[in-house]
């Protein structure tokens, strides 16, 4: 016991990091699975359909069924593929997209207790060059798609891979340029520094970078960043690499079973990363939209105000659900949600602690919804339109944004 204790005191940092990585992976993969459910439900609502509803109450077990299906399907290796590269591509795509989550900070304060003398922060790592690390990972992310298209030894995937590498290279420029304004204002590459610079305790929502009361509003930068980021993640309306009406399924046509699932998970994970980046860079990260004055104190109960009615509604909905299974599961779920809401009111310290994560996660959720919204609304771009938007619109506009912001920052710092 004593030996284990001293081991953990000395190497606790490594143990803690491994535990945190495991926990984050578990959470993100679960969220990914339910993101597919969420996406199908929302798109179904937009198209006046029901969406998945057979497996479990409201189709809530559909992700599990999908996962099992991917695991048990036959793993086909097409003839004439380049075996090493063919197997490498999905691994690259998944590893890189999961790795990018490691630098995302989820909350301002470390947990109130420590792990054998080691402080538990709400991030895996917080390097000084956090944003550069993210861009480096994104830059490598192209290979997953490009190599998958090439290694499949088939025409449609090759076209998809070519399209995607051209698209990602073009939009990476605009994406990088569009955040330079934010970097100039924060004077740092560290994501926590960028969030702290947008501290909203005085001016509330106006101090977020998108309104930028301290320097210059980054709304143009945000629009450029978000459009370019959607293109980087190959989502509608920029999903030309996998345009199903032209290219069957694009770069992952020849991938079956779990290798296909790996591409799928990679795509959804990058959606989460991009949403988190939007929230952190432009929407104040974990800062709440209201100033820290007594008048606005009631917003601290917002998590409870959302959780309790939602939990009660789930209970009400579950009691009259058509299957017995649903009549047990849904009220149970609702009770748990409502109980968390009540607990937050009972324990003010816990409520205070989750304010930061609550705001960050709500912003991330909003952008994830936006992704789905765009998918349900917008048609796909034509290839020449895509290139025109990237090079002739986003890039010049974001460069202009950099120049103007630099002027404002210079003006502010000399005054």
């Amino acid at each position: 016991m004593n030996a284990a204790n001293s081991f953990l005191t000395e190497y606790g940092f490594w143990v803690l990091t491994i535990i945190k990585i495991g926990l984050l992976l578990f959470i993100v993969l679960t969220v990914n699975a339910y993101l597919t459910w969420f996406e199908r439900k929302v798109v179904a609502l937009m198209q006046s359909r029901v969406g998945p509803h057979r497996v479990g109450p409201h189709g809530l077990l559909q992700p599990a069924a999908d996962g099992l299906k991917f695991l048990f399907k036959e793993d086909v290796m097409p003839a004439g593929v380049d075996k090493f590269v063919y197997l490498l591509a999905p691994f690259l795509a998944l590893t890189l997209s999961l790795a990018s989550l490691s630098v995302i900070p989820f909350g301002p304060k470390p947990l109130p207790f420590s792990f054998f003398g080691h402080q538990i922060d709400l991030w895996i790592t917080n390097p000084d060059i956090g944003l550069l690390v993210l861009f480096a990972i994104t830059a490598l992310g192209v290979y997953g798609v490009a190599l998958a298209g090439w290694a499949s030894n088939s025409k449609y995937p090759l076209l998809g891979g070519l399209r995607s590498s051209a698209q990602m290279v073009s939009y990476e420029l605009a994406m990088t340029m569009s955040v330079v304004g934010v970097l100039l204002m924060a004077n740092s590459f560290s994501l926590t520094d960028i969030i702290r610079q947008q501290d909203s305790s005085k001016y509330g929502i106006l101090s977020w970078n998108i309104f930028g009361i301290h320097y210059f509003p980054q709304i143009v930068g945000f629009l450029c960043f978000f459009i370019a980021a959607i293109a980087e993640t190959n989502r509608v309306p920029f999903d030309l690499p996998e345009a199903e009406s032209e290219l069957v399924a694009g770069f992952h046509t020849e991938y079956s079973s779990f290798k296909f699932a790996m591409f799928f998970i990679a795509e959804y994970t990058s959606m989460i990363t991009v949403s988190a980046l939007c929230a952190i860079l432009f929407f104040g990260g974990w800062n709440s939209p209201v100033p820290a004055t007594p008048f606005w104190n009631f917003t601290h109960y917002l998590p409870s105000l959302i959780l309790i009615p939602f939990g009660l509604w789930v209970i009400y909905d579950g009691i009259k659900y058509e299957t017995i299974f649903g009549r047990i599961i849904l009220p149970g779920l609702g009770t748990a949600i409502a109980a968390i809401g009540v607990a937050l009111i009972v324990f003010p310290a816990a409520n205070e602690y989750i304010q930061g994560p609550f705001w960050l996660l709500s912003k991330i959720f909003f952008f994830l919804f936006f992704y789905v919204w765009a998918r349900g609304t917008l048609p796909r771009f034509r290839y020449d339109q895509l290139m025109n938007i990237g090079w002739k619109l986003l890039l010049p506009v974001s460069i202009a944004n950099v120049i103007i912001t630099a002027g404002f920052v210079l003006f502010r710092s000399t005054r």
Partner: protein
Amino acid sequence: MSAPLIVFFVLATLAVIGALSLILQKHPIHSALSLIVVMVALAGLYLLMGAESVAAVQIIVYGGAIMVLFVFVIMLLNATEEEHTDFSKLAKFGGLPLALALTGLLAAAMIHSGGAVPNTTSPDALANTSNLSTMLFSTFVYPFELTSFLILVAIMGALVLAQREKT
């Protein structure tokens, strides 16, 4: 052996294996992939020296932008395994002695300097981005501007060539 030294040897081995595989692979895509391994291993070595931003830029520019372009062109041309002409077979015989001679020269230079290659700058000059940029725009401003001018000329050259093909 200390931890940084172990990491150094892992990364250095990776870089050397990548470089060897770059030459020995028959298929251009495999060669390009090996080159990416070399680039990423080098970025790791920079990180080991405490040059964080240089490491990140190494991956973004070399590992990302430039190598993507390589892979893209190889895919676009649908290049297959390389064929050997008589001349390239000749290079096999001439190349080996030349490579050995170069290795010998480098080794001799290192032994001559007594294994103690002096640090040109203090290590923390490269540690953070603001120090790096201060250095770029003060001490090394002329080389920096000249390099960017050179790149600008190259870009304009590429544009001119592309335009001529169009008409």
